[in-house]
């Protein structure tokens, strides 16, 4: 029987710091607090943890974090590149480690002072001459150097081909804000957004306006992944990982894959989706809610198409009239997402996925058998499907 990652591991603990614009402490402190909270939530103690994984972009070394939290010997540690594309890639690492016996209990973590420290919105500018910097050099001299500008380039083409408008993008922002309004962790808690607010906000990079762009946040989030057998002995209902996968597409660049025949779809996310469905044996009809990576509003639409919730170009119709709301076809980003809760590089989204399975989201849909969670767009990426035990 071929090896499979279906039902090989479960998320049993989640933790996070408060999300703010100025944490007033180090990224190591944020990572430590989130990790300790996740371990406690799992009903484990730090010495039970023997694996750790995070983003290459994280500034906190796993060994520093292990020492701070009191985690002892580690038999597995790894890092995944490409920014937000790593969000579920790190879960993929943990599942493989648990499935192969390389580790028994793996912590996934991400912590950043994304607002008070280095801000991603400021874009790329320099650094050591790596293949990455040579890559950015095709764009920096012309001033195309921020995430918003790269995503806007795909968005303009997508909107041109499909007739999607700025008002359609606003639907995504408003649906998510409606969820954030009920979530006390969210920056936009109790602060609704109207179509008029969205349309009158300042343009950042045409066609994207202010509320089409995610926030910048100080905060940390972490979760703990163990085998389904170990999960049975732990206090919280496990979120079983039904399927998980990574993907990088042909002719891929990190954020600037402008040389493919079409730039209005996501071949790497298509690849991730195909594997998730194959591994889990599920179909889009089985998904009750989703946490869809939302660094920008437009990228939510393309992922709905990659995962087959609708055909290419039809996402604007899928989301109309509250399609992403609680009573809609696919309740989406029920925490408010990165547009309205916080930007913790998608790891806050993992925790929301687990809450949806546990039934504890502040915007909880009645049916919650399966939840899709995805990672960054425009980069090599990843996704998973969570299920009830």
């Amino acid at each position, binding site marked *: 029987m071929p090896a499979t990652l279906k039902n090989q591991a479960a998320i049993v603990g989640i933790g996070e710091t408060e999300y703010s614009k100025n944490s007033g402490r180090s990224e190591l402190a944020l990572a430590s607090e989130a990790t300790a909270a996740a371990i406690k939530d799992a009903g484990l103690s730090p010495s039970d943890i023997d694996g750790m994984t995070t983003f290459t972009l994280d500034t906190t070394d796993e060994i520093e974090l292990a020492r701070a939290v009191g985690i002892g010997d580690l038999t597995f540690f790894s890092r995944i590149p490409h920014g937000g594309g790593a969000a579920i890639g790190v879960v993929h690492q943990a599942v493989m480690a648990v499935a192969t016996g390389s580790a028994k209990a793996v912590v996934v973590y991400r912590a950043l002072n994304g607002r008070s420290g280095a801000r991603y919105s400021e874009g790329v500018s320099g650094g050591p001459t790596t293949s990455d910097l040579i890559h950015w050099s095709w764009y920096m001299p012309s*001033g195309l150097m921020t995430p918003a500008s790269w995503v806007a380039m795909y968005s*303009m083409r997508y909107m*041109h081909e499909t007739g999607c408008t700025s008002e359609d993008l606003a639907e995504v922002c408003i649906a998510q804000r409606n969820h954030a309004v009920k979530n006390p962790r969210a920056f936009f808690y109790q602060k609704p957004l109207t179509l008029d607010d969205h349309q009158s906000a300042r343009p950042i990079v*045409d066609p994207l306006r202010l509320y089409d762009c995610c926030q910048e946040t100080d905060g940390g989030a972490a979760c703990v992944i163990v085998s389904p057998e170990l999960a049975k002995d732990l206090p919280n209902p496990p979120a079983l990982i039904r399927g998980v996968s990574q993907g990088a597409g042909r002719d891929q660049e990190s954020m600037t894959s*402008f040389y493919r025949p079409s730039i209005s779809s996501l071949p790497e996310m298509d690849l991730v989706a195909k594997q998730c469905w194959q591994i889990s044996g599920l179909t889009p009809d089985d998904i009750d809610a989703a946490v869809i990576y939302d660094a920008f509003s437009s990228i939510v639409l393309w992922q709905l198409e990659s995962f087959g919730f609708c055909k290419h170009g039809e996402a604007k119709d899928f989301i109309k009239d509250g399609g992403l709301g609680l009573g809609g076809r696919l309740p989406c980003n029920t925490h408010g997402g990165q547009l309205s809760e916080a930007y913790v590089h998608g790891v806050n989204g993992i925790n929301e996925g687990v809450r949806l399975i546990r039934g504890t989201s502040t915007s909880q849909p009645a049916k919650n058998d399966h939840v899709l969670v995805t990672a960054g767009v425009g980069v090599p990426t990843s996704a998973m499907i969570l299920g009830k035990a």
Partner: protein
Amino acid sequence: MSLSGKEREEFEKQLEAYVGIDIGIEDASRDAVNQAMIRQWCEAMGDACGAYTAPEAAAKSVHGEVVAPPAMLQAWILGGVAMATGEDDPRDKQRELHRLFDARGYTGVVATNTEQEYLRYLKLGDRIRARTQIESISEQKATGLGIGYFINTRTRFVDQNDKEVGWMTFRVLKFEAGDQPAAAAESNSAVPAKPQRLRPALGHDNRWWWDCVEKDELAIQRCSACAVLRHPPRPMCGECQSTEWDYVFSSGEGTIHSYVVIRHPEVPGYTYPLVVAVVDLAEGTRFVGNVVDIEPEEVEIGMAVQASIERVDDEMKLPVFRRAS
């Protein structure tokens, strides 16, 4: 040549006489703290705080009335244009000290840092005076600009009741400008260097392409084995794995495949709103570059464009696109 040995010892002894003395003149505000100057300063700095410029908002603020931005402190006592063009005041010991440095060849001067502390908000009608003391002079230092000495001053600001309202420390470097004329000329100028665009990082795989741009050529890499064109350049052909390649020159003709209008954030060295497009070149590859001489609203997907290589700042050349005629 910087001073050494006995000469230097004598010079430094002369300097010592200046440490701790008051520079000998009092700077008094020519105008009382006033709304017009506050408004001009706030407009120049982009500070929209109502407590400075809007009497109604100020009345509701913790101040209860209009106050001056604390960072304006020094503005109230500056001497205006005459400072730069007028005669030196013979009583000014600081000028005297600088001339002493000049005579020994330390003609360069650059302000390196300043620190201010504000003891209270200034209100309309306050009259500010200031006295400055030469606090210390460093030993001879080798700096990036040249050999020189740091002079530290401390300025104490008082109001019409002789009550202290704030103070400022100021540090300048007097240095031998001769070794590095470019740096000295720059630091003596009141005009800061014009910001330039970000430069590309250059390595084995892309330097040749940028060298072509310097020669006004828009190159496209071509596999020598299977003749497939590729951009951006790579060391190996993805079709046939050949590492042999040459290049062809693009005609610069193309159509816009997609584009953006960048408005925020504004990075120094670029002009906004900034249009950047992915262009389908006639040769079949794509190129990402600026579209210029067009209103952002007029740019369209499918628009025919023509590339030309132009100087985009003081040094760098870059292919840019214009609407094809």
